[in-house]
């Protein structure tokens, strides 16, 4: 087989795989539609305000409810000691 044929076949296979990944994404979204509905109901029912993505401190568990000066809230300019805190963006006016 010519080298170009092999290469073009490879690109065709990869492109089909890429298209399949888009199809897979659509299918997975349909499969997880129930999950989103369940999550939305939970948020509405319990009046939740935040995702559970960092539970180590109160200001990382409820980012949107944290004080203005989070994450340095133990005392002014206190160095952050929780890992997630160092990944929080500074207030918009600072950058």
């Amino acid at each position, binding site marked *: 087989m010519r*080298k170009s044929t092999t290469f073009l076949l490879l690109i065709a296979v990869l492109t089909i795989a890429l298209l399949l990944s888009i199809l897979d994404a659509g299918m997975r979204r349909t499969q997880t539609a129930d999950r989103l509905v369940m999550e939305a109901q939970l948020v509405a029912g319990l009046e939740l305000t935040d995702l*559970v993505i960092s539970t180590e401190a109160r200001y*990382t568990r409820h980012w949107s409810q944290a004080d203005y000066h989070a994450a340095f809230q133990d005392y002014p300019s206190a160095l952050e000691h929780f890992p*997630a805190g160092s990944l929080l963006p500074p207030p918009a006016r600072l950058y």
Partner: protein
Amino acid sequence: MVLLQRQRYLIDYTLSALYRHKGKNLGLLLVYTLIVFLLASVMLFTQSLRQEAARTLQNAPEIIVQRMVAGRHALIPADYLEKMGRLRGVSERHGRLWGYFYDPVVKANYTLMAADHKQLGERDIAIGAGVARARGLEIGDRLSLRSSRGEPTSFRIREILHPDTELLSADLILLPSATFRSFFGIANNLFTDLALTVRNPAETRKIAEKLTLRLPDTRPILREEILRTYDAIFNWRQGIVFVLLSSALMAFVIFAWDKASGLSAEEKREIGILKAIGWDSNDILAMKLWEGAVVSVTAFLLGYLLAYLHVFHASAELFSSVLKGWATLYPQFKPIPAIDGLQIATLFFFTVFPYTVATIIPVWRAAVSDPDTVMR
């Protein structure tokens, strides 16, 4: 047809030329694929989390009113519900009760929340799947927690919240409000904060302004601010990972630039010979364009597909901890694909285009020179 055949011959030649230095070119392809994989993984994962946050938190209360004392969030008296007066557009207002509990047994923080609509018994609780996993609990088991008075209080698990909702409920413990108050020693006339339901979302900002005037020691948090917070957080985290990756990215750029733009004496000789045997400059440029495209398009497709598999079929194991956060209680969930065509196009443009162009410029210089000069 002739044009097509011509291009196929050029590809044949290009592949043979690449094969002659297979070790070097395979190494380049591998590193290139890895870079695309890392960038695409961060992009896909962040986009997925951002979308899920935006879609679910769309149902959060329109306005939360927090009381601030000495710059800190404090419990809010129930009479603030009356003190705020009549607010046009607010259809419902009530107090929320929630707080944190540090469990020294598993060194984890739980979020305790009053949920009277669950109609739990006095000592019954509903727990998130993360709490159940951390403490090895099942429905009917008992969980003992030390109350604010220092007395161990035993609760019966009546419900475990659906594991599919872990992203929002992993650390939750739901209990009746009376039990919540007695457990934390909170008086009946106090709430953690107040939640307001607003009929017309366009009015929330106006209502928040009125609230800050009527209750100067409070701070209203709007739902749109909550949504903005999450959007900003995931943008920021994506940025941080990109910054961390930037050293690897720079190393690759230097490597690729050196490989693509600096013609070796051997390559110059090759171009000279091709010209001497009758190839014109356009053929040589087309051949080199194919060389750049073969490497970069293959690396892009491979890298993107691996990233897709990594994020959506392996739950982004490699950097989920950085993008999600980390703690003892960690939600287990599968990201929901949210593919943005523009993002893929941007990734394609920034990974494929620069390399392909970098291969062309030096070749163009060599291709337009006299074959005799180039070969010398």
